[in-house]
């Protein structure tokens, strides 16, 4: 029997991006404590880059991205 036990981390949070409302300020990407987000190379209809979710499983639902977002375009919550 193996002496090693391994648990898959439970997914704790969910982050939701409304890319058309985003103005590409970067705040959410910079201040997410667990680096869930990265700026997309793509543009939204207004011509701004928007955040992409690159590691959904790392989201803790802390809500910081939403607290920073000046455009109410992103938020995270616990699940």
């Amino acid at each position, binding site marked *: 029997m193996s002496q090693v036990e391994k648990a898959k981390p439970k997914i704790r949070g969910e982050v939701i991006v409304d890319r058309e409302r985003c*103005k590409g300020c970067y*705040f959410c990407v910079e*201040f997410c404590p667990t680096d869930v987000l990265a700026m997309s190379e793509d543009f939204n*209809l207004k011509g701004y880059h928007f955040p992409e979710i690159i590691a959904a499983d790392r989201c803790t639902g802390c809500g*910081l991205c939403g607290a*920073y977002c*000046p455009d109410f375009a992103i*938020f995270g*919550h616990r699940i």
Partner: protein
Amino acid sequence: MSTQAPPAPTCEVHNPTEQWLRMDRIPHIWCPGCGIGSSVNCFTDALEKSKIPRDNVSIVSGIGCTGRTAGYLKLDSFHTTHGRPIAFATGLKLANPKLKVVVYSGDGDLFAIGGNHFIHAARRNMDMTVICVNNMTYGMTGGQVTPTTPLTAKATTSPYGNFEEPFNLPYLAESCGAVYVARWTSFHVRQLSKSIREALLKPGFTFIEVVAPCPTLYARRNRLGAGIDAMKYYREQSEIKNGAPTRDVALGFQSKIICGKFVDTSRPTWLEAQVQQHRAVLGDKFTLAENWEGVGEPRED
């Protein structure tokens, strides 16, 4: 220009700020990376946590980019004339002392044209919470010098650098008699929200300064980069010193930013003082105005 309508939201959970906004007015006019929106998130979070019933809250703004806030919030909102939100707020409070009255406005509005209202409302301990988004410039009109523009900073009206000594807002507020004084930057979202909640729940004149970026005018003219660069500067150059003497917290150009709760004290509000004085002098002849019940009763804080 032809643009498709943005896709309708398909998600059943909503941004927690949305329930406090007039969504028919969103997207707002604020520039990319402007700090006003972040402060609004903190305000609505604080309001929710304060448990003050929504119908009892009234929000008053003057004119400016920050002054748009009242119009975006789904509360009893007053978008007043430039410099006068504190005067309007005073009237609201006296006409209906049960209201929680909040003034949300810019540094130019509150401390240049509106400076006289600020000092007297603080002196009288008029029961209201004043939130000032200090971007150190007149944002809406193109980036002129305000009473908080730091020395040497460039502005439309100071192309060779500002030479006027700015106000140190927490010091000003405390000297005039505010019972609660705090300063945060728009980077300090959790602390800011907590301070706003404390201020909302405290009787008397409570004041919070929010240092926030204006990337379009202040930062561009001073070659300070985008909103995110200001936010990184706040993260790196802020020092939290709760209880610091306010005379020591003046801001310089790209200086250290002392943040924290500086003042938290108590004295009778203007309404309480008036009732107490008149009751003492007039005795039985004194009658309370119709909707002033409870004013002047002892309180716990």
